């Protein structure tokens, strides 16, 4: 929708009053919708006491205690014992000492976060790799029962994850894939490959066949044409698809909570169960949430243009 031709379409252009009104309403909605998120990011910089103060504190003195608690485990010690220790090195140790605790070691957050990275990237690589091949085949060749196969691929996304998890659980138990990164990578790849095929087929459909045909006339084999002509042309689509797969795998919870317990557990089932002494350690939870959201926020901005296509399985193109 270019602005340049607006004069020619003056009848359908909204009046400036309407625009102003729409702008205010949308901006208001956006601000309200972002408050919960801002609140969480803020909570990450509160002390545990400030986080659960009544009434809730909007103004507070920032603290990194939440981040310290996220990355360390602490144990309570007697004042005599603490007095016998050498002076604290590092901010986190300092904060812990003030509460009669010592840092006992690193928490599980980093391993869980690493698991999230490995599983998300691993499954994205697999599903996009498989997806781009299948999408190319569906786009260019006569595959028998093509429509049925495509619909079948899509329908695998309709099953409730818990329903799928029952047999997967039994199967993984037999194969020794329970609570392994490989098991989770395969599972997420299977879930994501449907999205990848549908999206990539759309992108590849848009690349004119003539390009490959010209290349093949020049003596390229089909595979070479695919590699040297189609793939470069589809780069944008592949990157967009990869990010969508990544976001799904990154955010996934139901399978992770049922099929992993320690070794391969990802961040989403871990973050809600970060507890301090006694109850929930909300600043640490908020800190973990914030760190977990950062990549997604970046990707959202990067993906703006392809968002619609991604979330509708390529059903709506813009």
């Amino acid at each position, binding site marked *: 929708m270019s602005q340049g031709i607006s004069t020619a379409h003056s009848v359908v252009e909204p009046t400036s009053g309407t625009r102003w009104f729409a702008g205010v309403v949308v901006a208001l909605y956006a601000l309200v919708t972002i408050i919960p998120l801002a609140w969480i990011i803020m909570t990450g910089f509160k002390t545990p006491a400030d986080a659960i103060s009544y009434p809730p504190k909007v103004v507070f003195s920032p603290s990194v205690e939440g981040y310290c608690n996220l990355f360390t485990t602490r144990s309570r010690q007697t004042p005599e014992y603490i007095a016998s220790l050498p002076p604290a090195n590092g901010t986190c140790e300092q904060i812990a000492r003030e509460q009669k605790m010592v840092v006992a070691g690193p928490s599980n957050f980093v391993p869980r976060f690493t698991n999230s990275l490995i599983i998300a990237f691993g499954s994205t690589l697999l599903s996009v790799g498989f997806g781009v091949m299948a999408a190319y085949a569906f786009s260019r060749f006569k595959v028998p029962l093509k429509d049925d196969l495509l619909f079948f691929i899509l329908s695998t996304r309709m099953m409730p994850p818990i329903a799928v998890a029952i047999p997967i659980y039994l199967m993984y138990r037999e194969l020794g894939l329970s609570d392994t990164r490989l098991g989770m990578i395969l599972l997420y790849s299977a879930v994501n490959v449907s999205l990848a095929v549908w999206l990539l087929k759309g992108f590849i459909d848009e690349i004119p066949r003539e390009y490959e045909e010209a290349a093949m006339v020049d003596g390229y084999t089909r595979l070479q044409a695919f590699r040297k002509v189609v793939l470069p042309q589809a780069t944008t689509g592949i990157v967009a698809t990869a990010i969508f797969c990544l976001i799904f795998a990154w955010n996934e919870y139901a399978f992770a909570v049922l099929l992993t317990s320690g070794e391969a557990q990802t961040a989403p089932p871990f973050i809600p169960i970060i507890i301090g002494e*006694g109850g929930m350690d909300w600043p640490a939870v908020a800190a973990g949430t914030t760190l977990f959201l950062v990549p997604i926020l970046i990707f959202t901005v990067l993906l703006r243009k392809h968002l619609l296509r991604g979330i509708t399985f390529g059903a709506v193109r813009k």
Partner: protein
Amino acid sequence: MKTMLNKMSVMALIALASALSLGATTTQAQEKTITLCWAAWDPANALVELSKDFTAQSKVKMKFEFVPWTNFADRMLNELNSKGKLCDLIIGDSQWIGGSAESGHYVKLNDFFAKEGIKMSDFAPATVTGYAEWPKNTPNYWALPAMADAVGWTYRKDWFGKPEIQAEFKKKYSRDLAPPKTWSEFKQVSEFFQGRMIDGKKVYGAYIFTERGSEGITMGVSNVLYPFGFQYQDPKKAYALDGFVNSAEAIKALEFYKALYKGSTPPGLTNAYMGEGLDAFKSGQVAMMMNWFAFFPGLDKDPNVGGAKIGYFANPSEKTKGVQLGGQGISVVSYSPNRSEALQYIKWFASPAVQKKWQAIGGSSAHNAVLKDAGYLQSAPYAAAFQDSMNMVVDFWAEPSYAQLMLAEQKRVHDFVVADKGTAKEALDALVADWKKIFKDDGKGK
């Protein structure tokens, strides 16, 4: 965009490669490291400290996997059922013993105990029955009692001691304000404190368990059910539930728990278990709190409410005595590749010296060397209440179907107490029907 694609695939490759290599290193390192799984709570931190002695002595490194209570059963039973190798040792909840023994998740310890001279008679009988035996009351041991625990009460001694409060209470009920001995007294005390202004803050009567998701409300309501005369089954006929689970006394008890919930608890107490209770008590919201004895060492040291400000009492009685048993035994997971190191840990843990240290640093020993020690009652302000409690503990079902039985009671009780659905009789009748069906599916009872 193209370079981005290349970068991304390189990153993914690195990630994949490191996943594989990491997998390899963990298996290598496991030769000398064993993992102990438990719930994430104060005693677990004490165990980390205690275990440093084991590592120093045996050169076996310890790793810990602690899960919050509300997810503990789900996660750990899931792990056991999937024959996972995450845990070498597990401090599993008392009710899991039936299922874990029958499914072969735990290693049977009889031979090991005999070989190492570990005698179950050295441990408090209630804990041996509760944490180690399956079938109950037979000498088949699947765990070593590790953490003796029961539900207890803590109260604000400082508030109870205020002269104006004492005077007002006496005027109202013509008796002295003291920690309640019976549930009727309890109700008076909690309603007396409900909504009162103390030190310029509105306070409430009591904190009780109401959690829905795991076992909270069941572990709470039991402490009223047992003293009122509820029984799990006909003492003369196993699995005969009618007239015991839904007896007139049980109905009265359930109504009583709801009256407590409605009339003497802080607002928003709809889904609260141990953690929420501690938060509320530490922030000075309530006069009395129901919680596991396991938290009391930590509470005693609390800078805000600890020490002389609080006292402890055993669960009130009514028609009879009774309190919910908590606590866990430590078991060796049969899928563990490090069985001998795990057994070595149990042997070390069972020694009286370690048990004494365990008690001293915030654990809760079930060993007679600790409990029968002359100085025990003076060792902590809650020791007397704990001893009383251990003499009247009752446990929930420990059947292999315990989780199903638990979930049924969670639903029926929460529906009635919190969600205001139906009557107490309907709730307990429905519970009997649920439980009968579960036993019937298991081929037990009729």
